[in-house]
């Protein structure tokens, strides 16, 4: 479909791609001495060997427990995505209104895990904590993407209706039906993301796969942990087989039944009201001492936010460069003309595994090996995001029209693929930057000193007022990085990133990337 050419940003100086890459690498080098990369485990290689052995010989004897965790993972994902999707659908037609847009931005700037930590305070370990932790941020994402899908729908039937038709009729007859197929595809893609989110929510105590994994690791039961991982990969890889549009009602019913079977400890009455009216009010205001507000904020900023922010940026910077390096190599790995058919198949396998696991879960695994430092987080973020970018680039490389006598192997990569894919490579890295920042903050919950660490800490001490300010700061940082990434991308020139690459799920048959 023809789309209007976006006017180039007026007279902003253009940046060169190699220059931008060099700048990011230089910044990463400067960050290196500041990063805590110590290996804390006493014998990481033995731990790695035990883990590898567990994964290669998965132990399915605890299958009943695992099956229930799988069912609940699916149930939380289905319910959360359905609720978030419905809310997003209601918001989408009004997305151009500023309050709606801001609400959506605020909802999605807070990560699912952070939402879960907050909701745990209000609702306890309950079904609604898990469902809302997925539904709230997803509502913000759905609102944005569905509004884009609606905007892109063929305008001609709506124009045909003429000026006298009321807006609701125009929307329901000549806009919504045109957008439905793409919306359904996007919802399926979101469900895959929801499955990852749902699994990860287990790490903060909800009864999903992450919880099982954590339990087995604590017990040193690597075989059972291996079984969880194997089942998890099968679940994600097969989502297009078991989730069919015509089975939606069935799955919703299943989710309802499964979630209904979860018993949760009762929360004290009025927890929500106490949370909103008292807990999140800054302590000086609560104690009737407004003059102390500034010192309180200053203390919070210097003790928690700034150190957390610095660690978040360091982790993200190193992870971004690692992701870039992984992607740069991986883009060639899955092209048969470069690595041969067997090599490409193996490359695909590795990338699929790295893509399937959420960053958080990978980091959790690495943490078991190398102990708590920035290293597991950087590795997890770098490998996962690198695999995603590499996968997207590799697919583009496989689709390139090459001349019949083009070389093969490394020569092809060096002379044809790498130069041609350099522009989308840089654009995709910049696009993932915001996601890496967001995930770096999350890594704090694992005990790495990024923003999430201070947030978790504040929540653990039941100082919700501090937690909310840290959360807001985290959201602002992500929004800021997003804006910076956009500005850099705009100055690199248009046309380097296909519109759809930002929403990979709407390409039919494409493995999903969250």
């Amino acid at each position, binding site marked *: 479909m023809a789309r209007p050419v976006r006017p180039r940003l007026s007279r902003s100086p253009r940046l060169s791609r190699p220059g931008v890459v060099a700048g990011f690498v230089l910044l990463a080098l400067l960050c290196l001495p500041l990063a805590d990369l110590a290996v804390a485990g006493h014998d990481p290689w033995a731990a790695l060997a035990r883990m590898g052995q567990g994964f290669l010989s998965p132990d399915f004897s605890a299958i009943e427990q695992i099956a229930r965790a799988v069912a609940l993972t699916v149930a939380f994902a289905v319910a959360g995505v359905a609720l978030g999707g419905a809310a997003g659908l209601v918001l989408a037609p009004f997305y151009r209104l500023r309050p709606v847009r801001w609400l959506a931005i605020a909802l999605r700037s807070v990560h699912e895990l952070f939402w879960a930590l907050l909701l745990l305070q209000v609702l306890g370990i309950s079904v609604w904590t898990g469902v809302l932790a997925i539904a709230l941020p997803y509502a913000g994402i759905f609102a944005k993407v569905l509004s884009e899908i609606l905007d892109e729908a063929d305008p001609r039937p709506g124009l*045909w*209706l003429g000026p006298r038709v009321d807006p*609701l009729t125009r929307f329901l007859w000549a806009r919504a039906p045109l957008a439905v197929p793409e919306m359904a595809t996007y919802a399926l893609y979101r469900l895959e993301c929801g499955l990852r989110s749902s699994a990860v929510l287990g790490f903060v105590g909800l009864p999903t796969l992450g919880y099982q994994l954590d339990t087995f690791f604590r017990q040193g039961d690597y075989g059972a942990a291996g079984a969880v991982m194997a089942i998890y990969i099968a679940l994600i890889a097969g989502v297009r087989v078991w989730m069919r549009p015509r089975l939606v009602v069935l799955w919703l019913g299943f989710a309802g039944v499964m979630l209904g079977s979860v018993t949760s400890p009762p929360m004290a009455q009025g927890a929500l009201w106490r949370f909103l009216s008292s807990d999140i009010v800054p302590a000086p205001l609560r104690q009737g001492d407004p003059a102390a507000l500034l010192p309180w904020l200053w203390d919070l900023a210097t003790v928690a936010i700034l150190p957390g922010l610095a660690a978040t940026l360091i982790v993200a910077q190193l992870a971004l460069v690692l992701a870039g390096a992984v992607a740069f190599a991986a883009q060639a790995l899955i092209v048969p003309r470069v690595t041969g058919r067997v090599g490409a198949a193996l490359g695909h396998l590795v990338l699929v595994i790295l893509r399937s696991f959420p960053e958080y879960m990978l980091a959790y695994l690495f943490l078991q090996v190398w102990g708590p430092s920035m290293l597991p987080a950087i590795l997890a973020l770098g490998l996962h995001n690198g695999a995603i970018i590499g996968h997207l680039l590799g697919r583009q490389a496989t689709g390139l029209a090459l001349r019949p006598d083009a070389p093969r192997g490394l020569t092809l990569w060096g002379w044809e693929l790498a130069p041609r894919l350099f522009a989308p490579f840089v654009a995709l890295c910049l696009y993932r930057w915001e996601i890496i920042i967001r995930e770096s903050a999350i890594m704090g919950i694992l005990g790495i000193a990024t923003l999430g660490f201070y947030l978790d800490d504040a929540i653990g001490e039941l100082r919700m007022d501090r937690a909310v300010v840290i959360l807001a700061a985290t959201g602002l940082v992500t929004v800021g990085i997003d804006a910076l990434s956009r500005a850099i991308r705009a100055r690199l020139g248009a046309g380097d990133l296909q519109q759809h690459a930002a929403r990979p799920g709407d390409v039919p048959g494409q493995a999903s990337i969250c």
Partner: protein
Amino acid sequence: MLRLDGADLGYGGAPVLADVRLHVAPGERVALLGRSGSGKSTLLSALHGAAQARGLRVALVPQDAALVPQLSALRNVLMGRLDDHGAWRNLRTLVRPSAPDRAAALADLARVGLTPEADRAVEGLSGGQKQRVALARALHRGGELILGDEPLSAVDPRQSGALAEVLRAAFPTAILALHDVAIARAFATRVIGLRQGRFLFDLPVGDLDATRIEALYG
């Protein structure tokens, strides 16, 4: 009924049609002839704008049909009258058309020979069938004037004559861009020949001769 007085028509930059003077009287049936790119579509959209500005009820058959592929043929036909009703009534019709509405839409589908396809989604129909859905939608809308941009281009040649006859009976005034000279002769009272953004001729259909056709397409 419709009048363009020396308008320059086009989309930004150089006009596709310059200094257009055209007056269409009620009861006239105008056929626009000319090769693709000669300005027929531009002229039609200008006429559509003029008709809307005058508050005429126009049935439009755009070249690209502008149907909603996911909805059934019947609902696409019902779209012809949405602006006669309020939002609630239209919502009800979308969920389940009332019996009289359904009967009326089915009658219009019957006029274009599509009764069996009434409840099929338009995306599953052939190009010719889609065009006939667009015609049925225009018939369902009704009005003083039909404006059509190659409304018969994709239908079976054996049907196009009969469909032109249906349109002739349904609308007192018509302006259609046509590619088939024989149909134009049978349908129109007046023919306008366009070539490279200029009016080559504008005459009663009886005066259309082979030389003029040759000049137009040659």
